[in-house]
Structures are given as structure tokens and as C-alpha cells.
């Protein structure tokens, strides 16, 4: 009986105490006609050794690719202590710290995490995580609408240079509450959102402008101008940022020229995965969200606060719970309950190990490797750089042919060569989004360039 410790003797004695003749009798309140028949699709039990063999074989079958895909999930070196600590039983197998006194470890880690996210984004409060970057944007949109003075403001201006998957997710999640997400086109030369595009949009009933920095094309937006424009039009600014990039880039809390309540973005969110979380086929990652203190009561998700105990000593506890579903039920800021705590632990350890200097090194290496990648790939005949604007660690390349077969040929050589943009951007028919982080060596970049050149040449021949 896997994971069940009962001996026959235990069962007999327990049934005796209960006063039942069999375990089956304990289910006598279930109407007989509902009782399930056997589970045909569930195979017989395997022991750990057998499952390990099965999974090992499957993993080997999937193998390892030299990865140049980014598009919202980024390969970074994960320091060995991160998961050594994160998988410690005390952190891995605890739950939501409802009993604060028996959960000070988790609580202090979350408090430290919140502090780090505030520091990175230059905001005042952080929650304890949301599910992922995409759903965090959805929550941010809902929050912006709640926080906006005008109750009829339910439109969100959403540039097309924002991750298109985020757009899909935000639409799926916010649509039922009647939010309208309105696309803003990007400048074809720079890949950026322009004031001109904003001016062309109807401001009427708009609650917020979303600004992604660096944007989906890896290009840097003019965040100051966009923020000022939004605030001038009484729109909240929702910043979507890559936390690694914040070692180099102006933090959302300082975007624009405003001051006081108008200083910087109003809500900051994004994908936390780059901070020590493995790619892992897409999850679990975590979404982060920070904001100004004035908005805290509109914030979704758990928040940890520092307080004192009976003896006046500092301690940590879940707080401001009146925002949450278990207290406010249908009036809650969100339905989120279980979040992504373990990943937050990983991120907290990651940021502690990197520190400001380490994070800057990582970010600079990303910028440099990507510049090298762009140089190497654009030397390949038939490959051109699409957008000329300054970038972080991604770039859009134009090929002289459709991207999909090229990516397949690269995969056959063990290279994940980027993301084909054709599906999401019809106007970018043969555009490839590539990424290089600090994990890439010069020989990796060479290998990619050589393979690409070879593939394009062979296809031509």
C-alpha cells in the first residue's frame, strides 16, 4: 500500500474504536448506485525504481537543446544553493503560513522577497506572488480598473509590443468582468510603442496603459514619455518588466517626470521565472506584483507584514487579509488562494546570492551576448535585423524565407533557435525572435550561426 502505513492490526483496532466492521462501512452514506467501478485508465502501481526508469527514459528521449528561445521564459544560470535550499522539507512541504508562530521561516522569506521586489521595481509594497507573469498582468488590469477613480473606466490600452500570450491570458481572465483590452500598434521601424499610436487611441473610458519594458521584441520602450502621457490622460500605468533587466534599466517606480502620487508606474508586474526558476517546460513559475502603498487595498494575493509578539519581539504574519477570498468571498480583490510560494523562495535565495553587483553582471552579460548573437546571425546571408532600437536580451531577425522549417532543421541539430513570430504577428511573416543570456558561450553562438548558415545554404541549393 504505497504511502499508507497501516498494518492489518492497526486497521482492526481502529475499526473497533470506530465501531465499524470494515472500511467499506465507512462509506455507507454514499448511495450505492454512485459507487465507482474500477479505474480502467489508471495502470497498476509501479515502485519508485520502475517510475524512475520510465521517467529517466522519457527525459533521455527529450534530450537537451542548445536554447536561444526567450519570449517570456529565460534560461539563466541557477546557483546551486537555490534549489538545495528550496527543496528542504521544511520549506517544500509546509503550506500557507496560517499558523504564523509555526511558520516564521516561510513568513520571513516572503517578507524579504517583498522587500527585494520593492527595491528592484522602486515601489512600496509587493504581494507574496501570483501564478505567473501572464496572469499577473490580468490581475493588474483588474486592479487598475478597481483603483481608477472613474467606475466606468474599464478599457485597458495594450500595445501590441506587449507579449501576445499575455494579451491572450489577460483577455481570458478579465473578459468576464467586461474589461476591454485595446491593441495599440507599434512602430514598424523601431518595434516601439509611440506617442503617436497613443494619441490615435480613444482615451475615453480607459483606465490604464500597459507598458512592457523591454518589450516583446526585446526593444526598449521610451517609458518616460509613455508614462507621462498616460498620467496626463488620467490613466494608470501598468508596468510589465523583466526583473533581471532592472539591474540596468530605470525601475518603473521612477518612470516619467511625475512626482508624488504620479511618480512612476502605478502597478508593476511580471514574470519572476528569470530569478532562479528553471525553464521546466513552462512552470511552475511565479508572477510578481508591486505597487504604491496607496493602492495596497486593491492588491490581489497574500501579503506578509512584520509585527510584534506578546513580548514585543518582532515576528511576521499574513496581513491585510480583508482583501482576500477567505475573508471577503465574492468581494475579494481576486480569487487567488494557493500561490507560487516555493518559487518565491527560490527567487529570494537567488537574489540574495546575486546581490546588486551579481544581478548587474548577469544583466550586462545578457546584453553583450545578445549583441554578439545579433552580429553573428546577421552575418549569415539571408538574415537581417528587424528593429534598430536599443535592446536588452532579445532581438527580432528577418529571414528571407518562412521561419518554421528553419527552426525544425535547427532542432534536428540540437538547437532551439528562437520563436517564429508569424502566428502572432501576421505582418512579421518571416521574423524570428532570438535570445541569448549569460549562459551562452562564444562557441554556442558560433554553433548557432554556423548551423543557420548551413541550413539556409542547403535549402537554397
Amino acid at each position: 500500500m504505497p504511502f499508507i502505513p497501516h498494518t492489518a492490526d492497526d486497521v482492526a483496532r481502529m475499526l473497533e474504536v470506530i465501531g465499524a466492521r470494515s472500511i467499506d462501512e465507512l462509506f455507507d452514506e454514499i448511495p450505492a448506485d454512485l459507487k465507482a467501478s474500477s479505474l480502467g485508465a489508471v495502470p497498476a502501481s509501479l515502485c519508485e525504481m520502475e517510475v524512475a526508469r520510465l521517467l529517466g527514459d522519457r527525459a533521455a528521449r527529450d534530450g537537451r537543446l542548445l536554447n536561444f528561445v526567450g519570449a517570456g521564459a529565460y534560461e539563466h544560470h541557477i546557483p546551486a544553493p537555490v534549489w538545495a535550499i528550496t527543496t528542504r522539507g521544511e520549506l517544500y512541504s509546509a503550506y500557507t503560513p496560517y499558523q504564523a508562530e509555526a511558520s516564521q521561516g516561510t513568513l520571513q522569506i516572503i517578507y524579504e522577497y517583498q522587500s527585494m521586489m520593492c527595491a528592484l521595481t522602486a515601489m512600496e509594497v509587493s504581494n507574496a506572488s501570483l501564478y505567473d507573469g501572464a496572469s499577473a498582468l490580468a490581475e493588474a488590469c483588474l486592479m487598475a480598473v478597481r483603483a481608477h477613480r472613474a467606475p466606468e473606466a474599464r478599457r485597458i490600452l495594450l500595445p501590441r509590443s506587449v507579449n501576445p500570450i499575455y494579451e491572450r491570458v489577460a483577455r481570458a481572465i478579465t473578459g468576464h468582468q467586461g474589461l476591454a483590452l485595446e491593441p495599440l500598434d507599434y512602430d514598424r521601424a523601431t518595434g516601439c510603442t509611440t506617442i503617436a499610436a497613443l494619441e490615435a487611441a480613444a482615451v475615453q473610458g480607459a483606465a490604464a496603459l500597459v507598458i512592457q519594458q523591454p518589450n516583446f521584441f526585446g526593444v526598449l520602450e521610451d517609458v518616460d514619455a509613455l508614462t507621462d502621457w498616460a498620467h496626463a490622460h488620467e490613466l494608470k500605468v501598468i508596468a510589465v518588466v523583466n526583473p533581471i533587466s532592472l539591474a540596468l534599466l530605470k525601475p518603473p517606480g521612477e518612470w516619467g517626470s511625475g512626482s508624488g502620487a504620479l511618480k512612476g508606474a502605478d502597478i508593476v508586474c511580471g514574470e519572476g521565472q528569470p530569478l532562479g526558476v528553471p525553464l521546466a517546460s513552462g512552470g511552475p513559475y511565479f508572477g510578481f506584483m508591486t505597487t504604491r502603498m496607496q493602492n495596497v487595498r486593491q492588491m490581489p494575493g497574500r501579503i506578509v507584514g512584520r509585527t510584534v509578539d506578546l513580548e514585543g519581539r518582532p515576528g511576521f504574519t499574513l496581513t491585510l487579509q480583508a482583501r482576500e477570498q477567505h475573508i471577503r468571498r465574492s468581494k475579494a480583490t481576486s480569487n487567488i488562494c494557493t500561490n507560487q510560494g516555493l518559487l518565491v523562495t527560490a527567487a529570494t535565495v537567488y537574489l540574495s546570492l546575486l546581490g546588486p553587483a551579481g544581478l548587474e553582471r548577469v544583466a550586462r552579460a545578457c546584453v553583450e551576448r545578445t549583441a554578439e548573437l545579433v552580429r553573428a546571425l546577421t552575418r549569415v546571408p539571408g538574415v537581417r535585423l528587424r528593429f534598430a532600437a536599443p535592446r536588452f536580451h532579445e532581438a527580432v531577425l528577418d529571414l528571407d524565407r518562412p521561419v518554421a522549417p528553419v527552426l525544425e532543421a535547427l532542432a534536428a541539430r540540437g538547437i532551439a533557435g528562437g520563436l517564429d513570430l508569424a502566428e502572432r504577428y501576421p505582418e512579421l511573416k518571416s521574423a524570428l525572435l532570438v535570445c541569448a543570456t549569460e549562459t551562452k558561450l562564444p562557441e554556442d553562438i558560433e554553433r548557432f550561426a554556423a548551423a543557420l548558415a548551413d541550413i539556409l545554404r542547403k535549402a537554397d541549393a
Partner: protein
Amino acid sequence: MNKHGDREPLIFELGKPGRRAPSQMPPPASSPLDLPAHLKRSAPPALPEVSELQAVRHFTRLSQLNFSIDTHFYPLGSCTMKYNPKACNSLAMLPEFLGRHPLAGEPQGFMACMFELQEMLRDITGMQAVSLTPMAGAQGEFAGVAMIRAYHRERQDDARREIIVPQAAHGTNPATAAMCGCTVREIPCDASGDIDLAALRAAVGPHTAGIMLTNPSTLGVFEHRIAEVARIVHEAGGLLYYDGANLNAILGKVRPGDMGFDVIHMNLHKTFSTPHGGGGPGSGAVGVGPRLVPYLPIPLVALKDGRYRWLSERDRPSSIGRLSGFMGNAGVNLRAYVYMRMLGREGMVRVGEFATLNANYLMKRLVQIGYEAAYPERRASHEFIITLKQEARRYQVTAMDVAKRLLDLGFHAPTTYFPLLVPECLLIEPTETETKEELDRFCDAMGIIRREMEQEPEKLRSAPHTMPVRRLDDVRAVKQPDLSFKPAA
């Protein structure tokens, strides 16, 4: 505070300007940073500056301040704190799985696991199709209610925007309904914990989108008349949503599909033993009956001509869409898959049996000690409720006091004050992975507490006494929010 009486400082307080963990720093850049000045950060973020040893020691020490399944009996009701097998973690962390970018092709090995997981969950729930993308129970609920809405909408019946939930429902149920743009109507339970059928009949109508039910309910009892409930709601044109967070109770015993439900979410992080991680991640897979299949959230894994494929917008035009950037908490699903393969068909059935055995045994023992079961005439399911309303009156001690005192005695407390409708309640879920001896030890502790109530109630009111901190001031936490460390200027 660690166990030696020192408070563990904040990681920021351990830091010092200029201190580093150099092995974690990639080599320095070889060219100057070529970015426009107005886009650049002017001052480095105030992150901690510590050595690698400092970080390791700090977080190791912090971890020891936690109670966890690996260290303590953790009978937190409605949370299914069962043993998380280590193999689930180590196999999900095989380097090939960890290293795979979600947009890099269709890895057949990984996708085989996901496909088989879909199939197993389908079978267990008696549903027609399953999507693994929701990232926790609440998001599974969202998917479910969104599908119900999509169903009504596609039938031009979009006025159905009311979701019925029993009073005792978990908070995520009404919150989800609201997130889906629905209004919520709560209906009461009768004295035996079942739904008040008269109230239900009165509630349904052309505005009814559906009902969200947990069965066994959060009161820890099985809803006898579930077939009748289904009939009432279906006849009124509504759909039935099964909150499957408590699936542990009925695994292999009853299938929600057979009870007439149209949609279910499961908490894989409960029933299928993926880690709770100090608050998450979870996985809230959803299963649907025939009516809702077209609306399932994407991506799904399909098997076609011997190859696993992701199904996306193109394949599933009626889908409610995507709920996550990629495919949900993939690694959590992988852990659940490993767990289910180890349990196997027979093991599944035993989970429900022994979870129920442990709950009924513990309930009986506690009643023998003198505690009052909220529904004494009912069988416990996988969990049960003790109400301390007598004790509160007689000794002026609360469920919270008992909870805190249990910590001193080496047990994580049960869920307190949920469901709210039972006064001074403890919702106790032992799970199937605990031994009889551990349950007996818990009863011994509850016996001690009973004596203390009578003889020295102050000891309870001021508990805990042996934890890293004494009872914390929650009011102050709200009134003077201190939500992040501010370095001294």
C-alpha cells in the same frame, strides 16, 4: 528567532556594502554598456549584499523555524497535508525536463506524461476530458465557471449569471464566481450538514448559471442527496460545478461524473501530493462532461498518429482561452503524474479508504476524550469538524487558543474558523499517510489541552510558549503595515 534564542536577522541586516558571492557572478562585461541614459537605472537596487555562506546559513536557519509535513503531523483541514514523496520531486527535476524551454518544440517524453495524466484524471473523475493548465484550485474554479458561462453564452442564454454556493463553501468559490462576472447566491445547510433542498429549489431559476459544490462538503460530510441536487439544478437549466479540492475523500470510491457534475477542478497539490511549498505552487486541473468539452482551457495534449501535440487556439476555437503563459504549472503536473503512477489503480482506491479510516478514528477518539463533533451522527469523510463552542463558553478559551497550544505540543494546528458557520471550529484532516500512533499522540495532546482548559486556561490563552515567537499582534500588523524592509537612510 532560531531555536537558540536569537532572532534570525533579515538578510538585509546580514549584508554589507561591497560584500559579494563572487562564484555566482558571471565574468564582467568586456564592453561598455551602450544604452540611452534616460532608460538606465541610476542607483543599484537595495538588494542584500551577503556571502554565499551567509545566504545558505540564513535560509537554512529560517527553514528550521517552520512546521512542515516532513517534520510534523499537519492535520490542516481542507488542505490534505499528506506525505509528498521525494521521488516526485527528484524525477520532475531531471535535467532534461528542467532545461526544456516551453516554446521549444513538442518534447514527446514530457508530453507522454502529460497526456497520460490527463487520461488518468479523466478516468478518476468520470469526466470526458481534462485540461491541466489551471495553476491552482482557484484558477481551476475560474476555468470551470468561465466554461459554464461560455456554454450558456453559446446557447444564447447569457442571462444566466447567478452562481449558487452553499454557505459553507470555500471562499474561492464565491470569489471565482465574481471574477467570472457572476453574482453569488448563498444557500444554507441543514442540521446534518447537507444542503437545504427547499432553499435550493427556491433559489434556482432562469438566472441560474450553475451551482458550485464540494462533496464531501467542507463540513466534512458526504452530501447524501447529491443526485437530487443535480436534478434540481439541471432541470432549472444550470450546470453543476464540483469543487474537487477534497477529492482525497472519494478517490476510487465515487466519481463526480457519475454524480451528475458537469465540471470539476482538482487540487493536484492536495490529492496528488505535489508540494505545498509554503503556499504553492498548486495545480488545478479541470475535467468536464460532454457539454463543456469544447470550452476547455488550452493548451491540451493530444495524441495523433503516435505523436503528442499541443492543441492551441487553432484546434480549439471555442476554448475559454489561455490562463497561463505556457501550459500551467507543468512541473507540478509532472510530480502528480509520478505520484499517480506509484499509487496505481489499487493505490488510488486505498487513498480514499485510509484517509476516511484515519478521519473517522480520530473523530471517534476525540469525542471519547470529550470534544464535540459538529456532526456526530454523520460519518467523517476524509476530515471532520470539532466545535469548541461549549468550551468557549465554559472556560473562555477559543479554537485559536487550542490551535496555538497544539503548536507547543508539537503538532501543526487544524484549520480554524472555517467553515465559519460552525462556531469555534477546528477542521481536522489527518490524511492517509499518518500512522495510528501519530493520531494517538495527537489525541494525547488534545487530552492534555482539555485538562489545561479546566485547570490552567491562561496557558492556552497565552500560547504558544515554545515557538520562535509568542502570539503575534495581527491587529498591529494591519494598523501599522510594515510590508518591506527599508534600509536606514
